[in-house]
């Protein structure tokens, strides 16, 4: 479970996040939605510890993310896997090396054990025979899948996905969504997805957090989204194709 208490962040004069409090439940797919510039990417970066918040706290199963406590921050980060918007694969390394990288850095596995784990992770994301390919040699959808495989290489507790469907065709988007759902259920992890793809919301979302101008504007389940009378949420839904 990830708990946010009154999280605020300011860049210059602009308050990007204002007093956001919420809980992301374990084993659920938690979606953060909102228009571009609403603050959801900043929220995601704050959650994974890439930026420090000005006030408030973020705790991962009672462990507070504190930048002054390097050991704890490092321990929390090792429980985190993240799928970046652009996949963020290491371009100079093969698919196998990308997925193997966290295992090399943080485990004492032998080469054979690492290779077994890499193949297992690639199998989880339905990828075969790509071990020796470089990121530049595979499609955008495959890159996302390799990104997921790398994220789950270690036994993670929290999976963060930043716009997992951006730049993908509808069919591949669906594949990625299904994959995230499958992994969340199989590994019993807490998943947080940052998206403005409403199809993802209705396909795989459990809990939805709607951010508007840096504030928590609405929160509820997928079923509540359509029936909500929140004006801004409905505007956001109407503007999308569903």
């Amino acid at each position: 479970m990830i708990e946010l208490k009154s999280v605020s962040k300011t860049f210059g004069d602009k308050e990007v996040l204002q007093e956001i409090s919420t809980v992301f439940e374990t084993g659920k797919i938690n979606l953060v939605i909102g228009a571009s510039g609403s603050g959801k990417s900043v929220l995601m970066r704050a959650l994974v510890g890439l930026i420090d918040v000005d006030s408030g706290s973020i705790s991962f199963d009672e462990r507070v993310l504190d930048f002054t406590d390097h050991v704890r921050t490092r321990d929390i980060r090792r429980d985190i896997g993240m799928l970046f918007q652009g996949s963020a694969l290491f371009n100079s390394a093969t698919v196998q090396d990308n997925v193997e990288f966290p295992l090399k850095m943080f485990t004492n596995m032998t080469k054979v054990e690492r290779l077994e784990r890499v193949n297992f992770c690639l199998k989880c994301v339905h990828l075969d025979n790509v071990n020796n390919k470089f990121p530049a040699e595979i499609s955008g959808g495959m890159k996302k899948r390799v990104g997921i495989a790398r994220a789950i290489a270690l036994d993670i507790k929290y999976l963060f996905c930043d716009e997992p469907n951006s730049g993908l065709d509808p069919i591949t988007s669906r594949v990625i969504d299904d994959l995230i759902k499958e992994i969340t259920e199989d590994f019993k992890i807490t998943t947080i997805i940052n998206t403005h793809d409403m199809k993802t919301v209705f396909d795989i979302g459990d809990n939805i957090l709607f951010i508007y101008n840096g504030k928590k504007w609405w929160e509820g389940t997928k079923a509540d989204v359509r029936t909500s009378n929140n004006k801004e949420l409905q505007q956001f839904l109407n503007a999308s194709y569903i």
Partner: protein
Amino acid sequence: MSFFYHFGHYLLFIKSMFSKPEKFRIYVERVFTEMVAIGIGSLPIVILISVFQGAVTTVQTAYQLVTPMIPKSTIGTVVSDSTILEMAPTITCLVLAGKVGSHIASEIGTMRINEEIDALEVMGINSAAFLALPKIVAGIIMIPMLVIISIFLSEVGGMVAGHYSGALTVNEFIQGARLTFELFSLQFSLIKAFTFGFIITSVSSFHGYITKGGALEVGESSTKAVVYSSVLILLSDYLLAELLL
């Protein structure tokens, strides 16, 4: 104010590298990889500039020393001393600032804009240490070695040019070179190479690391890395000469 801001940022960047490595063996492997990239990768350009540097210095010194009152071996003395003290470490490192510096800045800068550095951070890896420290260690080991090679090849280039241009014989060149040779000159040259190696790799890593934006900004970082490294090399060259000579 901008200078102090960037200098402070640079010092914090250097400080951030000194933490316990996640896995020491991986860092050692990366140091060796970088040593190959910096050392072996720069060898052809170092060979080329060193040979011609020695040859041109010899021919031009011979052109200026026209009086029969000065023995021809003086050309060897002038070429040798200027090569060891200044030409080999400084000119070689200025060229390396362009070659190695731009490569480091663009490599790390591209990783920054592709979110690869963020990916390392999210994994709990000290990205500054992981990316920059092996390059700096490799730089301060390999650049002095390249400077030693440069000194040797400049001397050879000078000897060959002197012989074929008829300015002086090989024996006269060696005699002149040995006349004023001091071990300290070589030590001073290596101190300079060590310092320049640190400047090139750390400044370039820093500029790559703080890149923001896209491809254009990577190019800008690369240019800044070369310019700042070159200026700092010249500045530290003067300071070291003042302090140690």
